[in-house]
């Protein structure tokens, strides 16, 4: 889910419901778990997801990656269901299943023929309470996670840059740690660490259930009572805010890795969405990201890639619906023969152009058209609808406010976009991470602990 945080484009923020009818439906179980059901009867499919409000940001130093490792361990069986059995049952029902861990949450899903939904609910509720963690399973799965880290990060130059960017931008806030975990933390992780994590966070009062598909919400509510409703609530640990102190000067970090093209990512600290009704700037930042990189006619590609031929690629992203802190990110690869410094200057110039001259009525209208079209297209995918509700809820909002959020984005004015472009892009809150490409020395395997992060 890392890339999603990078480039969380405006359109990923579709609406939970384009109608004012009762759909979706919501109910809270007596143990505190919330159940949200969106009926969609186009095809006999059901998407079943459980989201836990526990992600990498809830970890402590020395334990980075434990949220994700536990996600892997959740497939290893319970007191009554053998390891791998859940996967087997899903597969034989004709379905597929997986899970994902982000900074803010951990989520589990199955996409199945709707007739299999009650069984999924039984199995998911079972592993919420009865996970059987063994030292042998843990040791084996930890190796798998280290392989995952090698694929995603060690051998992926842009993954290394992203890791360095976060580790540099944040001094205090837990977003400084990678979701996958530092390799050394993984090497020292124990069975007990995973078990503690499970006991601490995997409770119904820290979770919500999402079902989207060809289902009857009343029946889902009854089945939820029968399954999840039996899991006992427990008190959750206190969550410390761990707010990032104000940054007071530009930070720069360089990552060396085998590659050909350099790459630059520039991240400014900006506000996250807190109050759907009263916030304004956050919506203007969303529109700014859209104007820069939200569609095929957006400014960065048009100006830097196509017109000036200065960039191989260029992008912008802002995700304001997060539990922690928000950043506005510009990134790109310089074109052959151009430098990172030139690209950095050009990216800054695009922001300055919005600050000086504002945006056109056409550009603003396009963003709004994209929102409407995105809403319609989203209805072609049950998983997309479920993900949207899930992510919005994960950052502490209710799906009920989603239409309002869209309305607010569509109400943003050109002046508001210009105002945020002027206000938020000074050097004092900026972190710049650069990939310094290294020639491939075929005789030199990379050192095991070569995680080139420099503060």
């Amino acid at each position, binding site marked *: 889910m890392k890339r999603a945080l990078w480039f969380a484009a405006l359109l990923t923020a579709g609406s939970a419901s384009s109608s004012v009818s009762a759909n979706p439906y919501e109910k809270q179980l007596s143990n505190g778990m919330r159940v949200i059901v969106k009926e969609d009867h186009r095809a006999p499919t059901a998407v079943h997801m459980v989201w836990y409000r526990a992600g990498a940001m809830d970890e402590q130093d020395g334990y980075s990656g434990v949220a994700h490792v536990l996600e892997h361990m959740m497939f290893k069986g319970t007191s009554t269901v053998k390891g791998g059995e859940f996967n087997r049952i899903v597969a034989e029902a004709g379905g597929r299943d997986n*899970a994902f861990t982000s900074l803010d949450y951990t989520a589990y899903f199955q996409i*199945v*023929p709707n007739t299999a939904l009650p069984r999924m609910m039984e199995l998911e509720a079972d592993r919420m309470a009865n996970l059987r963690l063994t030292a042998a399973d843990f040791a084996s*799965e930890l190796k798998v996670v280290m392989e995952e880290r090698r694929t995603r990060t060690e051998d992926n130059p842009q993954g290394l840059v992203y890791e360095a960017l976060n580790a540099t931008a944040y001094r205090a806030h837990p977003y400084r740690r990678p979701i996958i975990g530092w390799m050394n933390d993984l090497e020292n992780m124990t069975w007990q660490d995973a078990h503690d994590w499970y006991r601490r966070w995997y409770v119904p009062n820290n979770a919500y259930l999402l079902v989207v598909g060809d289902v009857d919400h009343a029946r889902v509510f009854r089945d939820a009572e029968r399954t999840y409703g039996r899991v006992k609530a427990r008190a959750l640990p206190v969550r410390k805010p761990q707010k990032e102190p104000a940054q007071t000067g530009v930070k720069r970090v360089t990552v060396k890795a085998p590659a050909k*093209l350099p790459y630059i990512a520039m991240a400014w600290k900006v506000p996250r969405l807190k109050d759907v009704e009263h916030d304004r700037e956050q919506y203007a930042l969303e529109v700014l990201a859209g104007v820069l990189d939200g569609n095929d*006619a957006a400014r960065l590609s048009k100006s830097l890639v196509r017109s000036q031929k200065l960039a191989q690629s260029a992008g912008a992203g802002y995700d304001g619906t997060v539990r922690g802190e928000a950043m506005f990110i510009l990134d790109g690869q310089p074109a052959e023969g151009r430098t990172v410094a030139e690209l950095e200057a050009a990216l800054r110039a695009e922001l300055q152009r919005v600050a000086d001259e504002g945006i056109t009525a056409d550009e603003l209208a396009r963003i709004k058209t994209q929102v409407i079209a995105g809403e319609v297209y989203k209805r072609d995918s049950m998983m997309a609808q479920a993900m949207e509700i899930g992510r919005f809820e994960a950052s502490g909002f209710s799906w009920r406010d989603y239409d309002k959020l869209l309305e607010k984005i569509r109400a943003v004015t050109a002046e508001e976009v210009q105002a945020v472009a002027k206000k938020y892009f000074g050097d004092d809150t900026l972190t710049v991470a650069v990939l310094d490409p290294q020639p491939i020395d075929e005789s030199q395997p990379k050192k095991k602990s070569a995680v080139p992060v420099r503060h």
Partner: protein
Amino acid sequence: MRILLAALVMALSAAAHAGVKIEHWVAPSGARVYFVETHDLPILDVEVDFSAGSAYDPPGKAGLAGLTANLLDGGAGDLDEEAISARLVDIGARMGGVAESDRAGVTLRTLAWPKERAAALALLQLVLARPTFPEAVVAREKARSIAAIQEADTRPDAISAKRFAAAIYPDHPYGVSATVESVGRLGRDDLAAFHRDHYSARRAVVSIIGDVSRAEAERIAQSLTEALPAGLPEAPLPDVKLPTAATIKVAHPAAQSHIHVGLPAVRRGDPDYFALLVGNYSLGGGGFVSRLMKEVREKRGYAYSVYSYIAPRKLEGPFEMGMQTKREQAGDALKVANDVLAGFIKGGPTEAELAAAKKNLIDGLGLRIDSNAKLLGYLATIGFFNLPLSYLDDFPARVAAVTAKGVREAFARHVKAEHLVTVIVAAD
């Protein structure tokens, strides 16, 4: 994410779903048309494919098919690239490219409301029939393409994929990848000629799904294809020759070895397809429940991603088994995977595996076609490869009819050890 192998090219591994009615006709232009009418959502999806994939790149000009497809919207008719993208964005439409070894083309998703639909289809018609390939745009995209190739040539995953294709398809267009030199040779006249020769109505397959009537779909298909160039008749591709078993090691400093094992295996429409599909599910296509996943990942923790797939093409498409694993243990991990493969080829699936595979493939049919976007993919594939219109309806029976003996015999015919090529990038 727990698995990376999202799109395990099971491609046509799905599914008949009662109620999907595929209509087929030939437009007056000569284009073949495949259509599903559905009015649930105000969306129209269109895909137009041509026999114009990379397999048709002229010798020495690898990359031409891809660049041509990529630059259809680089300028068309009187419109420049900025006008095309602005018009698309103004109506909320999205255009995408298709660039494979056999086929190339364009996808369009638009709101089905009259104004938006008409404007989007007019743009699609223009980019298909009258691309201008402006000199400056071609020069810029050549440079970007070359930079992307140079970048890819530093990445172990890209290196291993290219080396594998070259090794299993010696002396065949399927094995050729674009290089800095081959793209460097291309000029706008090459693109214009490739378009003129290959983007003809006779070589076109139009797939349409969404909120339009049959009569409207007929008009749409004709208007999209009536102004296409006359083109050349489709020249047959050379036969695929099977490679000799070999192990190729490529030095690279990566932490993980990238391993591919495989060979050219099966064509679209081959009678053994369903036996291979069902068998491969148990071997390495079925995600967490496959033998490879159990032996390599679950039992030994050797890999995050380990899989096998079959990807039929017009000619023999690849069977491939692959994984990434810490380089120090690559030899051990590969031995486990090879043992699994050899055991499967020899013994086939157990009765329990066979039953499980059939249940997933048959009962999962509905899920694989539960959106317009997913159905469009099936329509386009059925159309392009001339599969029976009843493909989706027949699917459950064809899967159900597969026997363990049938799987063994199909693997014996299509996956022979004496032709298996192994490529290891970042080998110790």
